């Protein structure tokens, strides 16, 4: 855990990204402290998901650096970013549909385990023990997010809300320092959103930092310790939820320029 300044588990410095002539992100900086829930909001097309894609190694930024848990990650492949401690979920659910829920979560632990092919074939004691630990931990994680680990259902047959929860369990299985959630409440009803909110509070209490993209303003304002607002690829505001609510730039971005 060396290299972390002031408990900052995410440090983004001047990250920019263009696609051809379109500037998707320009000079974004954002720090997130250990244990915080940081909301990332903005109108559609503001660059929120692009920022997620950069942080998780899908794109590399044109310029700028970012650190996860003290480790520079801007040039790392996705699986190494996961190893550094950042795991994510997806706006449109991306589970391994032909695997059971439990198997999905077990895949999440791949990065923290190490038995290779030879060990897996000959199943020596260490391999069996590791496999047992993977399964136990995955079961525990499913219970933690409120799913039944014993259903042998393929994940693509689970209900929508369960699929969202399963994605969170799978991300948690990578033992992340930070978990990045891309619109976890999308398409949920009020009850489900309430359950999600409780789950996120529990995750934070258990020491995992959360970066949250969400359109449900009530959820974001009620849950987050701080909120950053993107508009046309520029960070226009950052601060406590209450301050953000009253920020003139934010109101203008959301409601159009006519308000002032």
């Amino acid at each position, binding site marked *: 855990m060396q290299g972390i300044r002031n408990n900052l588990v995410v440090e983004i410095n001047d990250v920019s990204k263009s696609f051809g002539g379109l500037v998707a992100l320009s000079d974004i900086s954002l720090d997130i402290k250990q244990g915080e829930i940081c909301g990332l909001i903005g109108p559609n097309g503001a660059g929120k998901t692009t920022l997620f894609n950069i942080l998780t*190694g899908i794109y590399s930024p044109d310029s700028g650096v970012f650190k996860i848990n003290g480790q520079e990650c801007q040039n790392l492949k996705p699986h190494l970013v996961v190893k550094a401690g950042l795991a994510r979920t997806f706006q449109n659910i991306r589970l391994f549909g032909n695997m059971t829920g439990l198997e999905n979560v077990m895949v999440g632990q*791949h990065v923290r385990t190490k038995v*290779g*092919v030879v060990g897996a074939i000959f199943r020596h004691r260490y391999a069996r023990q590791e496999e047992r630990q993977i399964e136990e931990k995955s079961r525990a994680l499913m219970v933690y997010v409120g799913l039944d680990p014993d259903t042998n259902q393929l994940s693509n047959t689970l209900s929508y809300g369960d699929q969202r929860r399963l994605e969170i369990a799978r991300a948690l299985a990578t033992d992340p320092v930070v978990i990045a959630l891309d619109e976890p409440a999308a398409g949920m009803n009020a009850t489900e959103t309430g359950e999600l909110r409780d789950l996120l509070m529990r995750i934070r209490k258990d020491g995992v930092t959360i970066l949250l993209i969400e359109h449900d303003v009530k959820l974001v304002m009620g849950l987050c310790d701080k909120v950053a607002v993107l508009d046309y690829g520029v960070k226009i505001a950052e601060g406590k939820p209450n301050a953000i609510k009253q920020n003139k730039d934010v109101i203008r971005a959301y409601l159009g320029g006519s308000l002032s």
Partner: protein
Amino acid sequence: MDIFLQQLINGLVLGSVYALVALGYTMVYGILGLINFAHGEVVMVGAMVVLSMISLLSSFPLPLGSELILLISVVSAIIVCSTLAFFMEKVAYRPLRNAPRLAPLITAIGMSILLQNIAMMIWGRQYKTFPDLFSITSYDLAGANITNVQIFIICLSILIMIALLLLINLTRIGRAMRATAENPSIASLMGVNVNTIISLTFVIGAALAAVAGVLVSANYSVAHYSMGFILGLKAFTAAVLGGIGNMAGAMIGGILLGLIESIGAGYISDITGGFMGSHYQDVFAFLVLIVVLVFRPTGIMGERIADRS
């Protein structure tokens, strides 16, 4: 009845070899969507390496038993073939990972021709005979013959396939492989090193191919630099028959194709009144390919429509 049982046994032997080779096609297809046409050549290299190793080891005045000689030879064939497949993927397929599908298909065909010619340069153009390490004994089974080599082939293939199924379904490596097959980019975002998994898939497929090469050359007692071509095409047919991308399908497809071919070859002469002989057996494999492609392109086990976003 005798002929039927005899062809059943022959078909089972042939089919287990097809199944081992088909697994290599289907695993690579499942993960990359690539038909590795050079896979048949890996089988040939496996057979050739074993032949060379056996004659090399036998020529030493060492007190090695035939079992030990065979074991060392097979292990070296597995190592050579796995290394070959590892570099083949790195050199010929990885640079084209994001190219249109036709490009890697063409490199695969190129790779196949290249390997055949290299093999011809190393091992020559003539047929090589498999040395008599073991005396072949024949057993009588309700009027049909089965040799000890055939029993060995069937048992070993079944063992290997069980081991592979366990590996794929019950271990972390297998899970990572299935996850990568479903969606490489998401697997990567969940911490799976996709390149390692792809290399591993090629290596495992090649190891199976090496064993298949040994078995097929032991069964027919010959090996030839071009033996991999037709064998590869038939194993590919078996993979398509079972549902390409599906491992259990490859096993079933392999056995089934072996049975169809061998029973067909046994009866074709009777059916056509002696007009076509058993050397037409290759016709059946490709007839099956055409029928499957026309009537059930997804194969026996294939239900999943490739969905890669």
